[in-house]
C-alpha cells in the first residue's frame, strides 16, 4: 500500500512540475513572440526607409538632374577633342 502511495506521490510531483513547465514555456513563447514582433516591426521600418533612400538616391543621381546641376550651377562643359590628351 505504501508503495502505491509513494508512486502516486511521485507522479503527482511530476505532473506538478510539468504543469509549471507548461506555464513557463508558454510565458517564454509569449515573450519571444513579442520580441519577434518588435524585431519584425523594426525590419519593416528599415525596409520602408531603405526603399525610400533607394528612391531618393536614384532621384539625386538621376542623369538629367546631375547634368542640369553640372551645366547651370557649376558651369561645367563637355571636354571636346582638342582639349584632352590621351596617355598610353
Amino acid at each position, binding site marked *: 500500500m505504501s508503495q502505491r502511495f509513494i508512486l502516486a506521490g511521485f507522479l503527482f510531483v511530476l505532473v506538478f512540475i510539468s504543469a509549471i513547465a507548461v506555464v513557463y514555456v508558454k510565458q517564454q513563447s509569449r515573450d519571444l*513572440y513579442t520580441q519577434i514582433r518588435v524585431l519584425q516591426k523594426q525590419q519593416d521600418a528599415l525596409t*520602408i526607409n531603405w526603399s525610400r533612400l533607394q*528612391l531618393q538616391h536614384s532621384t539625386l543621381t538621376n542623369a538629367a538632374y546631375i547634368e542640369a546641376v553640372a551645366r547651370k550651377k557649376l558651369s561645367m562643359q563637355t571636354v571636346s577633342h582638342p582639349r584632352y590628351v*590621351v*596617355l598610353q
Partner: protein
Amino acid sequence: MSRRVADKEHVNQHYMMRHVFVLVVIVLMFGGLVVRAAYLQAYEQSFLAEQGDQRQIRQIKTLSQRGSIIDRNGEVLAVSTPVDSVWVIPRQILAEPEQVAVLAKRLALDEQKIQYKLQRRATSQFVYLKRHLEPEHAQRVVRDIKGAYLQREYRRFYPDSEIVGHVTGFTNIDDEGLEGLEYLFDDWMESKKGSRMVVQNRMGEVVEEVKSLQQAIPGKVLQTSIDMRLQYLAYRSLKSAVQQHKAVSGSAILVKVKTGEILAMVNQPSYNPNDRASMKPAHLRNRAITDMFEPGSTMKPFAVAAALDNKIFHADSWIDTAPGWLSVSGNAIKDFKNYGRLDITGILRKSSNVGAAKIVMALKSEKLWQAYKSYGFGDLTGVEYPGEAAGYLSHYAQWRNFDLATKAYGYGMSSSVAQLARAYTVIANDGKLLDLSLLKQDVEPEGRQVMTVKTAQTVRTMLESVIKPGGTAQKAAIRGYKVAGKTGTVKKSQRGGYTEDRYIAVFAGMAPASNPELVLVVTVNEPGKDVYYGGAVAAPVFADIMQNALRVLNVMPDDISVQQASIIQAGADT
C-alpha cells in the same frame, strides 16, 4: 456457505447504490449542459457572437518584396516599397455611422461614395477602401476606427519612369508583371507569399501568434544589361530629334559588340510606368523590338558582304552604274543621280541602288538568302522580349529577278531595329553573330562565325567612307574616333505600293571603327517633309549618342594622329 452468499448480496447492493448515484450525476450533468446550450443559443446569441468576433483565429497572408530591377552598375530601375491598403468590414463601420465621415475626410474621398459602397456590400467581410497608401499616413487613417484595417502590400516604383519604361515594362496593382522585363522575368522577381495563423482581436490586432505556416520569401534581383547613363543620353537625343523633326516615332538601340548586351534601348513616344491610369496602348510598344520596317539602304553592306564572301567580287572591283537607272523585268531601279563607274566602296558611300542591285544579281538568290538568314534576318534576336517581331524574309524559291534586286537595298523584306543592330554587330565583331540580351552577361558568349573575318574588316573599312566627305552621312562623324556606318531613307509602304511623302530615316553604325566596341541603330519614323534623309535626320542622333557613350565608357580614341600621341607619350615618360 450461506454467509458467503449474504456477503455477496451485501456487496451487490452496495454496488447498485453506486451505479444509481453515478447515473444520476451523469444525467444531471448532461441535462445541465443541454439547458446551458439552449440558453446560450436562445438568449445570449448576439453577445457571444460579438465576443467571438473579438477573438478569432485567422490565417493571415504575409507578403514579401518583389525583386528589384537594376542596371549593369547597380542603379535601381524598379523597386518595390511597402505600402498599406485600407480595408474595412462594412458591418462594423456602419455600426457607428459617424465613422464614415471621418474616414472620408482622412482619405480625401467622397463621403456619399463610401457610404454607397459600404451599403452595397454590407454583408462582405472584406472591402478595399483605398489601396497603396504610405504606411505612416495609413496608420493615421485607421486610428480609432472600428472596422477599418490595414493590409501590407508592395508598390512598384520606377525612379527613371519613361526613360527606361519600355525596357522594364510594368506590373499591375498586385505586383504581377504585365509588360516588358516585368512580364518576361515575373517568376524570377516574384516573391513567395507566406502565411501565419494568429488570434486577432476586434481591432485587427494580433493577440497571439499560433504558428507560422509558411515563411514569405522575397523575390530575386534582376540585373539588366542596360547602362542607365547611356540610356538617359540616348533617350534625351532621340526625344529632341523626334520633336525637332515633328516625327511620329523613333527608336534607338545601343549594343555592346563583344557580348551582344543591349546597353540602351529607347523609343519615342514613351510612357510613365508609374502611372497606369495615363497609359496609351500605342505608347507601350517597345518599337525597337516589336515594330518591323523595311531596312532600306542599311542592307547594302550585307549584300556586299555576301558577294565578297562568295567571291563574286573583290574589294577593288568596279561596277558601272550608268545611266543611273536599271530596268529589271520591266521595273525601274533608280539612283539619286548618275554616279557612273563606282568601286564597291563607292556604291556604299553614294548608296547606289543600281550598283547594289547589280551586285546581288551576279550572286544567286539562294546565296543571298543564305547570307541574310545567317546574319539573323527573319529570325528572333534572342532577347525574348514579349511581342518581339521576327521580321520577314521570304524563301528564295519565291523570288523573281526583281525581288532579288530589291533585297540588295532592303525592300521586300522587313526587320526590327534590334535585328538590324544585331546584324551590324556581325560586321563589328569580325563576322561573329551573337544573341542580343537584356541581361548582364558575365562571360563573353561564343557566337557563330557567319562572315569571314576578312570580309567583316573590309566592309567596315568601306563603311568608314560613308561618314567621310563625299559620303551620305558626314553628320555621323565624331571627333577623335573613326566611325563606320550606313544611312537609309526608306519610303513607307502602304497598301498597293509605297508612299511618296512618308519616310523612315535610319542610321546604323559602329565606333571606334578600327576595333568596334559599340553598335548603334537609330530610326526616326516620318520626319517632316523638308528634311527626311537618314544622313540628315538619323545620323546626327547617332553622332550625339555615340560620342557621349564613348566618353562615358572611356573608350580610347582611335583617330588622334600618331605623332601627337607619341609626343604625349614622350612627355608622360619624363
